[in-house]
């Protein structure tokens, strides 16, 4: 394929999230909102109309008191590779407003190209895409904290987690200036990974063996969400708890315990 002819080996940025470490404290959610100029309304309790690029799901093992156990699962955009970059959302966008970048493995979303047909939202099984139902409004004066690295979205377009791509742009900018070709692992980290107090989120280049993620993703307890759909995501989860690993996908009764394939 054309994109493999790149000068430097194609990168594949991804995440490994340790669900046994995650306390569901919400730092990643807020770090993401603060980093990416995510708007907010007076009432954000309708979670079906609340933009949270990073959303923490909460689910239990279904047992009763006192055997019950709960798992918090942070869910950024999974940046599916699908087959050859045809992730569920990318292939359906009629205006090429969302795209898969074979150089980075990141699924981009261009707000000024999007005209809000929302087909991509329908295609995403992770519900990682959010629509701007309302005009973004910041209370008087608060627009002062908006970051110039991420363009605020207008009403009527879809937005989602970008793996803080602007941080990669900034890192590359520096590299160009200093005449570097490669970018260090810690020079490009997402806001959520950086903020997480328990370091449950690890971010890096899955193709680069010197990056932590490339090893972490191979742990026996690592799994991905809805692997069976062939979404081929780049966000891995880790848990020592079997019921959590099982919740990561759908299985018929007969199919569990999962045969390691």
């Amino acid at each position, binding site marked *: 394929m054309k994109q493999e002819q790149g000068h430097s080996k194609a990168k594949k940025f991804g995440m490994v999230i340790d669900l046994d470490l995650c306390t569901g404290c919400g730092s990643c959610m807020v770090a993401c909102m603060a980093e990416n100029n995510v708007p907010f309304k007076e009432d954000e309790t*309708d979670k*079906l*109309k609340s933009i949270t690029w990073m959303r923490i*799901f909460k*689910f239990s093992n279904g047992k009763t008191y006192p055997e019950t156990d709960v798992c918090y*699962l942070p869910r950024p955009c999974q940046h*599916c590779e*699908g087959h050859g970059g*045809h992730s*569920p*959302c990318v*292939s*359906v*966008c*009629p*205006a*090429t*407003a969302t795209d898969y970048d074979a150089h980075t493995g990141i699924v981009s979303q261009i707000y000024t*190209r*999007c*005209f*809000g*047909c*929302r*087909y*991509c*939202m*329908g*295609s*995403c*099984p*992770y*519900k990682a*895409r*959010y*629509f*701007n*139902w*309302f*005009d973004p409004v910041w209370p008087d004066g608060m627009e002062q904290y908006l970051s110039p690295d991420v363009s605020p979205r*207008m*009403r*009527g*377009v*879809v937005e989602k987690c970008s793996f803080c791509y602007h941080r990669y742009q900034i890192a590359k900018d520096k590299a160009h200036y200093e005449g570097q070709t490669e970018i260090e692992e810690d020079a490009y980290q997402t806001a959520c990974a950086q903020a997480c107090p328990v370091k449950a989120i690890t971010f890096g280049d899955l193709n680069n063996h010197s990056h932590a993620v490339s090893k972490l993703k191979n742990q026996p307890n690592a799994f991905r*969400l*809805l692997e*069976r*759909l*062939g*979404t081929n995501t780049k966000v891995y989860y880790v848990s020592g708890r079997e019921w959590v690993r*099982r*919740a*990561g*996908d*759908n*299985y*018929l*009764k007969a*199919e569990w315990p999962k045969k390691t394939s």
Partner: protein
Amino acid sequence: MDSALIPNGVRRCSINKFMIALAIAGAVLLWGVYAMFLCWFKGLNQTNMNDYYGFALWIWADLAIIALGGGAFFTGFLRYIMGKDELKNIINYAVLIGFICYSSALLILAIDIGQPLRGWFIFWHANVHSMLTEVAFCLTCYFMVLTIEYIPLILENKQIDKVPFFHHLSHNMHSVMAVFAATGAFLSFFHQGSLGGVAGVLFGRPFAFREGLFIWPWTFFLFTWSAAAYGPCFTLMVTKITEMVTKKKLVKDNVVELLAKISGWMMATYIIAKIIDTYYWANVTAPSLGFNIMHFYSNNSFYGLWILFLEIILGGVVPAAILITEKGRKNSLARNTAFVLAVIGVCVNRWVMVLQVMAVPVMSFDTWALYYPSWQEVATTILPVAYGIILIMISYRYLPIFPQEPELNPVD
């Protein structure tokens, strides 16, 4: 007063009666237009759609009316390509209905998108991999074809026809109509199909996803087929309604029965295919992704197996059975019931392929999300109905839509 415009040899109601009816329909239309502007100026927060329901009532309405409008291309196909000559007595009406359906569909799409002023990006920055792009292109092209098919009808108006130029124009257009009918049939095959593809390609949504042929999932063919099968039923149903309203027989039974018979057989074959598809999906596709079929029909307060029964049995098998049997077709009550059931059947199918797809949770820890439309959505969805009624009223009054009308209702 407007008698100069009314075709020769037919009787029409008084202008006052006509105007009152027009006013009523117009009022409904205005309500819809008001809602439409609310959506355009205030944004889609006017709807009850949300991040789990990116597609909802509107997209359903689109799919449904386009399926129902399928009568136009299929009847045209039968008339001009297959040479079913009797159908010339209903083709006009089929075209008109098709025109209404497609223009409405385009309008609804224009309301549905979050950035209407950027709508043209779908053509300019088209992504060839997207089913929606295919839909947009074919839909627009076919709408043009329908317009071209509708024009000669307008030209047949008594006054317009007096102008030599228009007279000749309409005559010439009639003679080349076969070409357009062919183009229309071709385009329709694709956009009806790609509408099916819209759902079928969603490999992230096991409820909608289907395997298929080359780039086209089975839903692609099922949609085209169903449109061809159910479209004529809608044409016939609307004809029946028109006859009831005008208290006149407008189309001879042999014509109706012919179309009903063809439609019936199409439906029968379609429903068999649909059953096979459903069976395969329920027993192979879904399980291979870890889903038991009951997952899609339980643990929620609305969607159950009943909807599957309503779509396939009541809305498919039953009408098909009625229409393919001589006795069924001949009995007007049975026939008309079949039309209604068929229309319901295809609408339910489109509903399922849009809204149930959105409702079903995919991640094991996600939940069902049910939705009901806001009044703005309802109003904008009723808008096309009012618009259709108005267009039919005017066309029926001033254009010779039904060639058999003078013969069936001689003016003494």
